[in-house]
């Protein structure tokens, strides 16, 4: 400790430079993590909010909700206590005369469905041609009572409620009932049991028999993995993050190793004086941990600052648990990097060092 800290205080430039390199790596890790979380949330927040366990889709839909075509009556194949239809439409939400335009994901389900978000202002849907909107749409200036259009039809619907921030496919959501949604997407049938839906979401359910038409059952976890682009985005960003851990390890490792080689004579003198490998290694570990902690802390601080000034269109979410895990991983990488010099330090022969 003492030895390591004193050396850092005496060689400020050297250790500040390495700390800055670690800071930059930490910053890139945290920004990528923020983007990965942001994208993940943007894609799946609506699905997470359902708190469902499985979803039934058309087996020819390649496990993709918007490509899945079923009809409302297909719930006859499913038995369970919470089985609700889901229908989707992605489009543009427009106020009269196109005063406001926003890309949204529209979701339709039964009015009393457990999938229907609970409004925080206004009221739940209780009649035809009503929608409720997520708080991020409200934040753009849409208000309860506004008459809006979605998609290409001239049909207008009325905003009756607002619920907590919620996104699907990286667009804020609106919810309505199945009939209204089918009218908005100009479905050929817009009433009764034969109107189209995309799938059924359930909490606990199973197929009634082996005969279940065109339906297949997916766990929600699997469904999220199969959200368009989700896995590719997460895999890309996470691979970059893992690669940065290796880089942090290598940079600390190489730097500390070079310093160790330079200081062999000094370490030899320490050993002559009875100050052994344990103390020398402790000094090096102290140094890399101090640098890593400083770099990580500054990196987090800058990331939080950046998050404030980032354009709202950029999906960026700080998931503190994940940031904590990545910080710990960077610290471990720094410690492992420093440990790479262990053997070299242990092998320094004081007799040679003073000879």
């Amino acid at each position, binding site marked *: 400790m003492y030895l390591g800290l004193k050396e850092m205080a005496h060689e400020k430039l050297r250790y500040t430079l390495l700390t800055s390199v670690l800071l930059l790596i930490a910053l890139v890790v945290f920004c990528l993590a923020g983007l990965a979380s942001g994208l993940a949330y943007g894609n799946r927040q609506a699905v997470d909010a359902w708190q469902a366990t499985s979803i039934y889709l058309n087996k020819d839909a390649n496990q993709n909700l918007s490509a899945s075509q079923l009809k409302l009556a297909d719930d006859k194949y499913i038995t369970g206590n919470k089985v609700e239809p889901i229908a989707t439409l992605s489009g543009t939400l427009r106020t009269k005369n196109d005063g406001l335009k926003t890309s949204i994901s529209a979701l339709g389900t039964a009015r009393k469905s457990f999938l229907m978000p609970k409004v925080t202002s206004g009221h739940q849907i209780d009649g035809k041609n009503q929608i409720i909107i997520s708080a991020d749409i409200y934040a753009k200036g849409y208000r309860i009572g506004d008459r809006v259009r979605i998609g290409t039809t001239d049909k207008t619907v009325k905003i009756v409620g607002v619920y907590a921030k919620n996104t699907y496919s990286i667009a804020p959501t609106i919810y309505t009932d199945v009939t209204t949604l089918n009218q908005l997407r100009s479905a050929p049938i817009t009433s009764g049991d034969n109107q189209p839906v995309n799938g059924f979401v359930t909490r606990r359910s199973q197929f009634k028999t082996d005969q279940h038409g065109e339906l297949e059952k997916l766990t929600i976890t699997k469904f999220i993995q199969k959200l368009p682009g989700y896995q590719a985005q997460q895999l890309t960003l996470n691979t970059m993050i893992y690669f940065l851990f290796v880089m942090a390890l290598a940079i600390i490792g190489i730097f500390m190793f070079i310093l160790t080689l330079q200081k062999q004579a000094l370490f030899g*003198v320490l050993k002559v*004086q009875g100050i*052994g490998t344990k103390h020398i290694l402790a000094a090096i570990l102290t140094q890399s941990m101090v640098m890593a902690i400083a770099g990580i802390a500054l990196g987090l601080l800058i990331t939080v600052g950046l998050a404030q000034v980032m354009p709202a269109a950029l999906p960026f979410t700080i998931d503190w648990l994940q940031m904590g895990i990545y910080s710990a991983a960077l610290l471990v990488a720094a410690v492992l990097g420093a440990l790479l010099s262990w053997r070299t330090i242990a092998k320094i022969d004081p*007799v040679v060092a*003073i000879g």
Partner: protein
Amino acid sequence: MTTPTLSLHQVDKTFGHGRTTVHALKGADFEIYPGQFVAIIGPSGSGKSTFLTIAAGLQTPTNGEIRLNGVPLTSQSEKSRLAYRFNEIGFILQSSNLIPFLTVTEQLRLVDKVARRKFQQEHAQKLLTEFGLTKVSNAYPSELSGGERQRVAIVRALYNHPSVLLADEPTASLDVARSQDVVARLAQEAHQHHKAIIMVTHNQRLIGDCDVVYRIEDGVMSKS
């Protein structure tokens, strides 16, 4: 007399084997008592450093026995040799004994940190005053003269109350006046504070203050 502080009995040290074998020490017998200033003098390559490193537990002898205050140093594990050096031995090298990023006082503080105890302010102050180093107590080694550096090295070696002080050509990098000053201080330390001090040198002119002189030639030691 009482038991010797440090004694070597019939110590051999050989390096390598076969035709390249080097007999660095051959049947060396040696003893030193508290308050003695002992010189070991011999030409380059005669085995002086080998003797000191064996006495310091930096290497193990091929044959023979070493005793500290009558106790044989039978336990030869790396860890116990390290503790032996830290607690019992003060080692002074030709040069570069000091840690470049620690001030004079911090060099002493480090000893206390390793020993896990509080800084011995008074003890440090006494030693620094005795060796005329109070003015430079906050200086880094690079800011000191060669003579001051060797004096700091002596203080550093004495600080942990060693049983025996080993000095390997401590004046090699100093001019004549400074060399004589450093040797005089070592002699004073032995005689006034009852320390056992061994100084290795190849300079005949520096052994005037020594109580006992050993000569060494081709690994053979003899008391003169």
